């Protein structure tokens, strides 16, 4: 089961130097990449930003204490080198010239500032506030997730999204069309639309794993898929990436002009609208608003988007109280007891659908659902390819504020039991192999075993019973070794016999004489 790529770092590190040099031409990109770095990486960059000559490797080592510090320095430098921010030449670390210049620009506000997005100069007649944007982003994003879990809530996502879901392997087409032909509800309509591309979409193992991730990871996973797709669509990778990073540096609640965007980026804007990452009042409008999904892309802080209805309620509440801390509380809604009972304070069909993946839900009330985690419900999830670790992470991430007062957050008994259920599913560990038996002599067995263990292909062996299990990969080598042994043994036997015969022949005449 392959994991989908979720980290932008891994993706960036696969890009060639040329791409980086073009990326670094935008101050916004430099800043965004800087924000994505670990603290030590940032520290190194900041320390050497205004040093105009290359820094000798030995000098930089002096910044760190002892071996532990040097290990960390090595790690950090490796990252920086992979991102082509630093290069090592003749014992000196040199910072990428483009990065250096543009990052200075980003910090001091010099150069061409358009890469941070051009704020519109005229006020918007149809200005929208943050609450609206949050609502919009949640609605769009959850529409996609809803579609994935197969709830009929909301309208089906547009074709671009369906296409992306299919290509990313989060959903696949099922060949069984007839079973879906009963009623034409919204979901079936969406499947109809998508059918030309990949049949009836069905959620895959990867899709289930995707659902349990936090929203920031989900957005990045989506965008990375988009990047992969962009290459095949002949879209310029640098422009797409630049735009993503630019979005990350925009300010929530402000409107930006779409006039400075390149044609590729305008096209991109259309697609991002569908994901709820940006908002545009109507197609071709001269201004766009980034939503919270966009502005938290590079910040590393979790996106505080509650369920759709919670967000609106919360926005209303926040408007009255102007309290920020309430927003944090909204994040958790699950209470899990030591008796495996689970209470989820949510009315979002999406969250209920996700919970339904691994919880046996019992009752539903206007503001909560109750359920119980059972062996069967966990096993159902496991067969769908969800791992115990993912379930535990999800429960921890969404634990109610009351639960957070305890350490550990989740009851240990339940966590352990979930892990045990997973192990129980894998009680058989079968390995394809060949069994070698009936070794004639102990020495043959021993030399074969020695040879096979040198190759590292022994799965199991028993000295007394002269049995060896060899992996299928090792079978050919070990087989020919054994054949050689047998031939040699035969030859030896023949030689011995000949010798005996000769001996006898010599012996016979002597008697006769």
């Amino acid at each position: 089961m392959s994991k989908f790529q979720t980290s932008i770092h891994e993706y960036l590190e696969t890009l060639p130097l040329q791409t980086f040099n073009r990326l670094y031409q935008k101050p916004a990109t430099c800043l965004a990449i800087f924000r994505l770095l670990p603290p030590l990486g940032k520290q190194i960059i900041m320390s050497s930003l205004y040093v105009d000559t290359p820094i000798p490797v030995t000098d930089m080592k002096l910044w760190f204490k002892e071996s532990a510090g040097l290990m960390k320095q090595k790690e950090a430098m490796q990252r920086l080198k992979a991102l082509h921010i630093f290069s090592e030449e003749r014992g000196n670390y040199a910072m990428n010239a483009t990065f250096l210049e543009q990052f200075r620009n980003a910090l001091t506000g010099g150069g061409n500032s358009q890469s941070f997005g051009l704020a519109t100069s005229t006020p918007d007649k149809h200005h929208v506030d943050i609450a609206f944007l949050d609502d919009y982003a949640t609605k769009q994003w959850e529409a996609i997730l809803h579609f994935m879990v197969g709830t009929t809530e909301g309208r089906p996502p547009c074709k671009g999204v369906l296409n992306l879901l299919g290509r990313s392997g989060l959903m696949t087409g099922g060949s069984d069309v007839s079973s879906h032909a009963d009623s034409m509800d919204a979901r079936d309509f969406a499947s109809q639309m998508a059918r030309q591309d990949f049949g009836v979409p069905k959620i895959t193992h990867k899709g289930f794993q995707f659902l349990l991730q936090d929203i920031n990871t989900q957005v990045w996973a989506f965008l990375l898929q988009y990047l992969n797709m962009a290459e095949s669509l002949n879209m310029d990778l640098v422009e797409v990436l630049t735009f993503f990073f630019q979005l990350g540096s925009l300010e929530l609640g402000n409107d930006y002009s779409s006039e400075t965007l390149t044609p590729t980026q305008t096209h991109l804007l259309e697609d991002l609208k569908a994901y709820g990452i940006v908002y545009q009042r109507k197609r071709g409008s001269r201004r766009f608003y980034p939503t919270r999904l966009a502005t938290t892309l590079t910040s590393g802080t979790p996106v505080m988007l509650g369920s759709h209805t919670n967000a609106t309620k919360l926005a209303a509440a926040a408007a009255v109280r102007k309290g920020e801390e309430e927003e944090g509380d909204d994040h958790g809604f699950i209470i899990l007891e030591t008796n495996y009972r689970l209470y989820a304070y949510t009315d979002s069909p999406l969250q209920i659908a996700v919970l339904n993946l691994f919880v046996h839900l019992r009752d539903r009330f206007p503001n909560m659902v109750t359920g119980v985690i059972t062996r069967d419900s966990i096993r159902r999830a496991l067969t769908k390819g969800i791992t115990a670790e993912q379930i535990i992470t999800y429960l921890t991430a969404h634990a109610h504020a009351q639960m957070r007062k305890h350490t550990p957050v989740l009851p240990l008994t339940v966590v352990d039991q979930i892990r045990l259920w997973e192990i129980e599913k894998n009680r058989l560990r079968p390995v394809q192999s060949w069994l070698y038996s009936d070794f004639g002599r102990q020495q043959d067995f021993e030399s074969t075993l020695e040879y096979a263990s040198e190759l590292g292909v022994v799965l199991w062996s028993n000295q007394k019973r002269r049995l060896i299990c060899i992996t299928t990969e090792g079978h050919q080598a070990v087989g020919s070794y054994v054949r050689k042994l047998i031939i040699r043994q035969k030859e030896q036997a023949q030689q011995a016999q000949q010798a005996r015969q000769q001996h006898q022949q010599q012996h016979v005449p002597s008697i006769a004489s």
Partner: protein
Amino acid sequence: MVKAVKGVVVECDTSVKQIILGLNEKGKFIIEDLDDTHVFVDASCIEQLRFDIDEILNENTYNVEESK
């Protein structure tokens, strides 16, 4: 003379091993009983074996959902 047989080495815990031995009474699929935690079986029976063991283990668990 040395013999090589193709099959599957199954590693399992001792209780599952006993279940496998029990199942072997019905249809012979074990090629060689190796030790307490290993058994060498016919490659074609693995899926069936998995299913059977699951069934037997399921019978031996208390089910909360039914006890409503």
